[in-house]
């Protein structure tokens, strides 16, 4: 049984990506690891005191909740799933998670889901990480129907 690593957050776009990952896992008899990566770069724009330490804790708890939703959806579809939460720069954490999880395939969401990435940027990122890790990185197809 291989492992599919699915980088995801919450929101409608993420659900499409999760569904795609679940579908692929089901077809291949694989398990899924849902990966949530976050940073606190936006605090650089906050002019008054914000507590990075407390915010990190809160986002980890929020991520735990979001990932539990994803895991439950996968298990409801009959796919074994778990989750991983990482804090840091997106590309670096993604590559590290791909290696440490032993993933045979990494699925990324569409640009809207990834926030500040454009499609060309994501495609380039996927290619670069694929070359770096030797693991295939793909974007969820745009034609993937919603639920």
């Amino acid at each position, binding site marked *: 049984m291989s492992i599919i690593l699915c980088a995801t957050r*919450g*929101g409608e776009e993420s659900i499409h990506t999760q569904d795609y990952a679940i579908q692929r896992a089901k077809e291949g008899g694989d398990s899924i690891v849902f990966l949530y990566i976050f940073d606190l770069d*936006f605090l650089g724009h906050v002019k*008054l*005191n914000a*507590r990075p330490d407390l915010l990190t804790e*809160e*986002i980890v708890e929020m991520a735990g*909740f979001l990932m539990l939703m994803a895991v439950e959806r996968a298990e409801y579809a009959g796919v074994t799933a778990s989750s991983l939460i990482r804090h840091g720069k997106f590309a670096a954490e993604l590559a590290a998670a791909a290696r440490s999880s032993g993933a045979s395939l990494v699925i990324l969401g569409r640009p809207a889901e990834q926030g500040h990435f454009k499609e060309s940027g994501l495609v380039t990122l996927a290619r670069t990480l694929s070359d770096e890790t030797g693991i295939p990185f793909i974007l969820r197809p745009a034609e993937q129907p919603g639920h």
Partner: protein
Amino acid sequence: MKEAIARAKNWYDRWGGVAAVALITALWLLSLPPVLPAARAELNTSNAIVGSVLDAQGQPVSESLVSLWLEEGEAPAATAETSPDGSFILSLPPYFTSPARLEISRHHFTDYAYTLSAEESAVLAGGDSLVLEDFTLARSFGPAFWVATVIFIGMLVVMALERLHNALAALLAVAVIFAITFAGGAITESLFIIDFEHDLAYIDFEVIFLLMGMMIVVGVIEETGIFQWLAYKAYQLSRGKAWLMTLILMLITAVITALLDNVATMLLITPITIQIALAMGVNPLALLFPALMSSNVGGIATLIGTPTNILIGSYAGLGFTDFLRDLTPGVLMMLAGLVIFAMFYFRRDRRAAPGKVSPALLKKLAENARIPDRKKLVKALIVLAFTLMLFIFGEGIHLTPAVSAIIGAVAMLLVVNPDIEEMMRVVDWTTLVFFMALFMVVGAIEEVGLVSTIAVAIRSVVGESTALAGIVLLWSSSILSGVVDNIPFTLAMLPAVGYLNATVPGTANNILFYALAIGVATGGNFTLIASSPNLVVAGIAERAGYRISFVDFIKVGAPVTLITAAIGMAWVLLRFL
């Protein structure tokens, strides 16, 4: 070398906060005015010339040099300096003769000469004192004025474009001001802007200590988990009804932000609210937007609710009870308007998606909202209540808000969390330095006459009309603080509002200061960048997959600002006219 750096870092981690307190205290002591010789001179005003120096707007001009010149004298026979109220007492030398003239000079004003008449000289020669009519100095707008203005505007632009951290932008502005004053001033007097000691006096340490005290109080409360627990309780009370959840959450955030920092409030409430919304099957933005807007409005209700209220309260001498009496009812009206808007605007987003939440998710939600240490929470709440009582009742014994905040902070440290080093790290020293630097920059532009120029311009628009002055101030500050950082904006406006307060009839009730408070706070809902909690909520929501763009925000923020500012204006006019 690495060891030395590591040792230095350790020292800073351990003692940095204490060192910062010592530095701030030293600066405060330096800024205290010396015992004025005028106080002693008041005891002996015989054979002296007494008068006052004012500017064209009738405001006192302090630190003007008043010199007495006798005929054929090569140096002044006597000098005196005007005190903060503009008055001076010039003691005559024993060899006083007529004719004599007074020369009054001050940086950024045109020199003034007054020749004593024969009758006036005779009075002085007879050994009596002479009280003269007020002298009016005209402003002089030389290179220093333009340089200081460019520096101030440049600082605002740098902050708006986020090219530098706000504190660094303000410190840079201060550094440039002094570089030009000392280097440029050595070449030509016309480049002298302001000297260091004088500029230090513009730092309002009441504000600094009030902010510092409340940061410690909030820092302890933040760690108790009470914000998250309250949001979860709102969810339980609402029994899954999204409209009721919205209403309760709005009330909770309004009340909390009236008493505590709204950045901390939204930082801690947003993640749990997103989870609650997902558990209810509704779009999280349908809960987040109303809570956020409510937090920006709720803070207007009390002295400590927003940093701008703290600035206004300290400048205008308004206490905790003044805000409670004069603004809280208006804030309740604004919140009512906000609730109606939120119920209508987000009615579609509140429709729950079908499906049940699993027991595991509900359990996770409850875990994320738990209070980790109930005893600590109870102690913290008792100390918070004690601090609020000090704010309310301390005014009766002239206890300033800053002292109440420091007492509250110390009580928190003693009763709840004895780890002072950890709490010193919680204090946002960068923000305090930012405020100090900002006070100095605004002091410089006040010194060169930019603030009085703005004040005169506003006065020419509003004339003698109190209502018009309030309306213009409220709406202009609401719109401008939607695009410009409202803290430097408020600081720069305060002296101008002070001038209007002293010269426009019917404003002794502080209507203009309250109009400013409402304007700068309601403007916080206008755009995404208008206030820090907006950015916090947007940042966290994006990390949950719910992106709020600048345009998305304005679609909600603009009508909210319009509604709340209009209600606020109506309240101010109703209450004070």
